[in-house]
């Protein structure tokens, strides 16, 4: 009896310690967000005061009005959503097909091509900037949503991720399907893909985040403010010498809330996808 209760106690203590640590971690991650929201309600002077005030003396809703007045948020949302959706759909379609091929089909030069694709991951993205820009220029696509979307439709990371998921599916399933007369496409489409839904969810989320955050490419390929995405448009709020931080923070709050909502809805998939990125055999 005594032993069980002491065991229980120990478990409880462990639980408390784990929760305390988790709470601490949560606070550390949440503070920047809270600070962003608090700053967005301060006056310019109050935002730079030393020592800083925590709560704004008076709520400055004008900062939000100012952010919305100076930037065309409607267009930004539209562009960002179109960009994000097209890129995400493209990556899901192309990466899952490529991933399936690399995981399940034997063809000549498979490993070589796969290594080639992986090597893309090892090169910093900035290196592609000028070549991609030149391609878009040659295609006459500069300053369009198409130019924004095109380079992101396929991703090496997504292919790698999906390949790992397809490799995790037992061979018996494939053999059974083949006996029933399935070809590669039906196996891919009807048997395998429904089984890798967590992988697709993870890919979708990373693709969404990537689009929402990407700055350099949207900024470089599109010059007019009507074709900018949220992140690119938002960056114009920072001045060379002085930034109106409260307005910039208000603008940022307006830009990040859709992602926070999306994360809240899909967080289960998000964590699951991340945890199973490695091997799943």
């Amino acid at each position, binding site marked *: 009896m005594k032993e069980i209760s002491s065991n229980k106690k120990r478990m409880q203590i462990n639980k408390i310690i784990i929760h305390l640590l988790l709470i601490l971690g949560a606070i550390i991650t949440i503070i920047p967000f809270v600070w962003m929201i608090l700053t967005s309600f301060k006056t310019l002077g109050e935002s*730079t005061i030393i020592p800083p005030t925590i709560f704004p003396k008076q709520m400055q809703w004008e900062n939000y009005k100012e952010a919305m007045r100076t930037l065309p948020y409607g267009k930004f949302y539209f562009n960002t959503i179109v960009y994000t959706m097209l890129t995400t759909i493209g990556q899901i379609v192309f990466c899952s097909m490529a991933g399936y091929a690399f995981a399940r089909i034997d063809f000549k030069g498979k490993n070589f091509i796969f290594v080639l694709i992986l090597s893309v991951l090892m090169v910093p993205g900035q290196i592609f*900037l000028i070549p991609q820009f030149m391609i878009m220029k040659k295609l006459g696509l500069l300053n*369009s949503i198409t130019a924004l979307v095109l380079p992101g439709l396929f991703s090496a990371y997504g292919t790698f991720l999906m390949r790992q998921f397809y490799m995790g599916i037992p061979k018996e399933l494939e053999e059974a399907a083949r006996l029933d007369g399935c070809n590669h496409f039906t196996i891919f489409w009807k048997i395998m893909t429904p089984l890798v839904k967590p992988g697709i969810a993870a890919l979708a989320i990373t693709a969404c985040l990537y689009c929402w955050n990407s700055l350099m490419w949207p900024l*470089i390929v599109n010059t007019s403010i009507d074709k900018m995405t949220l992140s690119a448009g938002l960056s114009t709020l920072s001045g060379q*010498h002085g930034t109106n931080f409260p307005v910039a923070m208000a603008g940022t709050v307006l830009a990040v809330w859709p992602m926070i909502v999306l994360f809240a809805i899909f967080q289960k998939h998000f964590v699951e996808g991340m945890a199973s990125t490695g091997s799943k055999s």
Partner: protein
Amino acid sequence: MKIKRSLSILLVVMMLITVVAGCSKNDAGNSTDGKVTLTFGLWDKYQEPIMRELADMYEAKNENIKIDIQLTPYGQYWTKLETAATGEVLPDIFWINGPNIVKYAANDMLVPLDELVESNNIDLSVYPEGLIDLYTVEGKLYGIPKDWDLTALWYNKKLFDEKGVEYPNENWTWDDMVEAARKLTDKEKGIYGIASRPDTQEGIYDTIPQAGGYIISEDRKTSGYDTKEALEGTKIWIDLLEEGLSPTLEEQADTNAIELFKGEKVAMVYAASWNVPVFMENEIIKDHIDLTVMPLIKERAATIHGLSNAIAANSKHKDEAWDFVKFLGSKEANEVWAKSGAVIPAHKEVLDIWESSYPDINLKAFVDELDYAVMYPVSMNTSKWNDVETEYIKQMWNRGITVEEGLKKIAELMNEALTKEQ
């Protein structure tokens, strides 16, 4: 089946949107109604409304011109410009600064303006000489000055009053300033007399010429960092640190000197004219700050920098672009800048209007410094040795190396970079 159908619908929608988006792209400046669209590249959100105002003024007078302002934040501006230059799709007109002018001019990315200036009888003497020099590369002018900036000594009157110290004036020497800083420094309250800034234009680019030295030789071939004047002009800043009159580099890394001044933790700071709106929009300090010319070391000097409007060589509408650049350089356009108070307008005849844009502070100090302004140091690949400066300034301010060692190192690496440019 259901999934398949919905997926194909999605794909069709996706293709449609792509096609539609592709069609709506701008057609290289020629819109259907015969209007010419000039693109204008700039980087400052706070100056954009004023630029828009000027564009509207111009469009009202020239009905066949439309001006499309393209704003890119400073952090990405040069990357974007370089990419655009490679693809020969630079904006028709764009802002350019000192460190980049030689690179763009020498690589034939810009339209030389001398003949246009001459045939249009434009008087360049209304602009500060140092700026015309800055934008003249190999004897040719590549930009019409838009604004300029100099550094001055700013001070917080409240902190001076608290310690009963007399305000700085235009006759101050460096020693007067140090003396005042001693009285103003209050360790208990965490207040410092002055910020010793690890900076160039707001620091050694001013004090080195004031000590009689130079940063780069006139032929842009040798560094001036290994002279004894440079040593003096740099060491005086380090002495402030050693005496504890300035926040350390570490403290300034957390909160830079401008923020410390805004937070009333330093009583005096060397700050350039672009800080005027930054300080004057801050409701906490704006009523009790003022400025004066930088104190005298050995001689009077101040490094001047400013932006220019340049025309891209790849522009398809050079004549229209020049006409707009000419308008931007006019007294009329400069008056708009002067009234805004955002920057110091390049045109000398409107300076009195600018001085009264913030009537409570002594903006005249900047205009006074114009008399002894020296050109901002640049060369073909300015950024190469700017990186060297940044690196060793940091080490000297951190006191990881002595000033002598640091300057020797800068001179050595800078000379190396300059030799490679030849």
